[in-house]
């Protein structure tokens, strides 16, 4: 049995933001994640957008935390060395009849405290985005983009370096409420904690049910995306969204530039029975067709990858009113803090959610600031972003910077080695990809996979038994060549 003050369940962006926030205080905090890395669920499967706050109904917790989180993100990202770019957003009306929707969005945004919203005409849209055909648009200059993997991993690493224990591959199986604490049984050891924070995303209803709170139900709603080749990045500069569809599944298929210079199309919105992240023929076609209505230049030849994410919704299919975020300590179960239905704009709101949870913790526990808290994380070196002189200097210092492993993204051997040396010791192909982008490019690791395997072999003595795409069960190989012949 391990003891702690706070036990956080779930290593998504919300759980990691809470861990990092609580690491500012003299508390023994542990975060449990069932997968072999952080950011394996919904947090890493979205548009990577910092929303400015005009989509959410005024007066809700969602609106408050959205706007607050959006204001916190620039400085948080700067502390953590996470690139954040205010590219701005255009919500595009294709015909005059859609203008009232733009006005409604603007009013909502103005009420919520979103800065700088204005409605612009088709000519002005053309000036900002020559490839987009529009009648008018709502322009939001402060909408921004970031890499959700980068942010979540940075939060987790910073929490770790400030004393939080992050325990991966550990799945909560049962929780018992004791007099003034909880016993949390996992597939490994058990934990005893005064406070439990349920930030289990898609599984938060099941975690809550373990302590008898069965009033929540998560309705998984899948969104599929296509990622476009970087050579199409010049097609747009801003986030380009349609007027949102009437049902509340999502914000409509939009065109999102990513912080790394790709474009993403998506997401769809489809309620599914189980939270699975496969993609389907129908939706892949639908996304393509809808995106082409905004941007006719797009071609299927530009797609380099498709993926999907699942929204943990509190409302079932057909709902016309979006549910608010649930962030509450259950009155019957004091010490158990539930975060339920944290879907979009959860990524944006995460830092504000974390502050709110810390305040809730403070209601029952003394929060003493940790003197040695260091808010900064050493920024990663992105070799391909550096000027030539700087590249030359780095290679002189360390020849591993001169060996390009991933040709599509120009990722060097040093960056791959650094990714492998991550503080969580997560060593698999996806973990490397999310940390240094090797394999994220147009060849989708066809060229660099063998090289990365060789590096894992050479530097970490890994073999066919532990060389994996991601978690256990995803072994890349079934053995060595000739093994099947020998049998």
């Amino acid at each position, binding site marked *: 049995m391990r003891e702690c003050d706070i036990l956080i369940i779930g290593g998504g962006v919300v759980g990691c933001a809470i861990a990092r926030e609580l690491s500012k205080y003299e508390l023994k905090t542990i975060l449990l994640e069932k997968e072999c890395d952080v950011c394996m669920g919904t947090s890493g499967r979205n548009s990577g957008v910092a929303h400015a706050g005009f989509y959410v109904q005024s007066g809700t917790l969602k609106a408050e935390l959205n706007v607050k989180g959006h204001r916190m993100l620039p400085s948080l990202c700067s502390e953590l060395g996470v690139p954040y770019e205010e590219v701005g957003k255009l919500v595009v009306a294709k015909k005059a009849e859609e203008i009232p929707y733009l006005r409604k969005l603007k009013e909502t945004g103005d009420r919520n405290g979103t800065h700088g919203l204005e409605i612009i005409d088709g000519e002005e849209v053309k000036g900002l985005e020559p490839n987009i055909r529009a009648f008018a648009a709502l322009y939001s200059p402060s909408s921004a983009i970031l890499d959700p993997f980068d942010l979540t991993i940075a939060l987790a690493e910073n929490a770790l370096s400030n004393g939080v224990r992050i325990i991966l591959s550990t799945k909560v199986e049962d929780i018992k409420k004791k007099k003034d604490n909880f016993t949390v049984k996992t597939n490994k050891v058990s934990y005893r904690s005064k406070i439990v924070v349920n930030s289990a995303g898609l599984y938060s209803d099941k975690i809550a049910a373990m302590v008898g709170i069965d009033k929540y139900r998560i309705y998984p709603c899948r969104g599929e995306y*296509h*990622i476009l080749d970087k*050579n199409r990045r010049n097609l747009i500069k801003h986030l380009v969204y349609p007027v949102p569809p009437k049902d509340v599944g999502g914000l409509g298929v939009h065109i999102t530039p990513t912080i790394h210079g790709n474009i993403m199309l998506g997401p769809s919105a489809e309620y599914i029975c189980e939270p*699975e*992240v*496969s*993609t*389907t*023929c129908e939706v*892949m076609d639908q996304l393509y067709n809808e995106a082409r209505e905004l941007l006719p230049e797009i071609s*299927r*030849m530009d*797609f*380099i*990858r*498709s*993926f999907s994410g699942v929204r943990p919704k509190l409302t079932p299919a057909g709902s016309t009113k979006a549910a608010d975020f649930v962030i509450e300590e259950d009155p019957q179960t004091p010490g158990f803090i539930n975060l339920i239905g944290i879907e979009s704009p959860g990524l944006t709101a995460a830092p504000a959610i974390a502050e709110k949870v810390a305040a809730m913790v403070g209601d029952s526990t003394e929060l003493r600031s940790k003197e040695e808290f260091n808010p900064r994380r050493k920024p990663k070196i992105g070799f391909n972003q550096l000027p*030539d002189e700087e*590249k*030359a200097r780095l*290679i*002189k210092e360390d*020849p*591993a910077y*001169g*060996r*390009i492993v991933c040709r*599509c993204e*120009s990722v060097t051997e040093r960056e791959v080695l650094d990714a492998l040396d991550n503080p969580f010791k997560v060593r698999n192909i996806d973990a490397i990809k999310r940390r240094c982008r090797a394999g994220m490019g*147009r*060849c*989708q*690791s*066809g*060229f660099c*996979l*063998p090289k990365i*395997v*060789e590096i894992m072999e050479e530097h970490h003595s890994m073999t*066919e038994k532990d*060389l*994996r*795409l*991601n*978690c*256990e*069960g*995803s*072994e*890349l*190989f*079934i*053995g*060595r*060549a*000739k*093994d*099947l*012949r020998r*049998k």
Partner: protein
Amino acid sequence: MNERSVDVAVIGGGPAGLSAALSAKKNGVDVLLIERNESLGGILNQCIHEGFGIELFKEALTGPEYMQRFIDEVENLKIPYMLNSMVLSVNDKRLIVCSPQGFLRVKAKSVVLAMGCRERTRGNICVPGDRPAGIYTAGCAQNLINLRNYMVGRKVVILGSGDIGLIMARRLTLEGASVLAVIEILPYSSGLSRNIVQCLEDYNIPLYLSHTVVDIKGERRVESITIAQVDEQWNPIPGTEKRMECDTLLLSVGLIPENELSRQAGIELHPVTAGAVVDEYLQTSVPGIFASGNVLHVHDVVDWVTLESELAGKSAAEYAKGVSFPESKISVIPGDGVRYVLPQRISGEKDVTLSLRVFCPGRDKKIIVKDGGKVVKKILKTRAVPSEMIRLSLKSKDLGGIKELRVEVE
């Protein structure tokens, strides 16, 4: 930052680059060969099967044997080459090269682009389903097995009947895996006929034509795939689905010339070949930059890469020596039944070999080169298939006064 000047810089040390470098050197100029991998030879390193050199040497060599002939010659002629060195940018004839030895600026009088091609991926062709481990492009699997000694799977399905897929069907079978099927969306194979016979038929591996993969299942590792028959528009036909339990899916669904540097250098690319638009010297739209091999257009056999690259190397050497080329005023255009034809423009003042591919397979076809209504050349092909490149030579004496050449299949 170090700088280096050279007459001809060749980007890529595979079969195209080796041949271009040798040819340039033999034409009396200084050459620098730049290779991003740890050894010369390019993709031939992993092609341990035989069948290379039949056209050129009248021998069936393995990939490594074939490339070694050229590497030996590069060594004998003391052509300098850089390994582990990647060209990050091409700006006119100035290159920036990144290597563990340092960052290098290369100033060349002419450049040969010989970067080869890459494999089309799952994302390019939108294969739906889960994304577990066990999905590889065929060339990547070939590298892992042949060069790194890793076995990728036990029960394998291969999507696409491109040559690498066919070769891998045999390779995996010889390694003891069971290859359940090769799935091809077209009504005919996209590989060489000899590979269909030697890699599938000889091992009783079924080839499903007009089929595609419509689903992949597997949480961590591939557990099954579902295939379905497709109609003429490549749409899956409901009711024809067939599930196959397997742990591996290989993709052999086409190759794409690696023209990122060319694009960045502002070279005009052709929408069909995805390679540069070139004249009969294999010069691109940027004067002094030449292209050959799979970066120019994807070839069927390496022998043609070698021959084409000899021309590119020679042209680059001449350009570096200040030889001026005649203007290429004649457009060469693909007509009925022809997917593409190279070069896209010629001068008409020298003999030239055209390379072309047809759209559909057929027997007893005439390939006709026309100037308006006038037939300039006609050849008969008892078998014309999209997977095989057709080469056709034209004599300068037949090209006088011509404005535009159209190549058709009849």
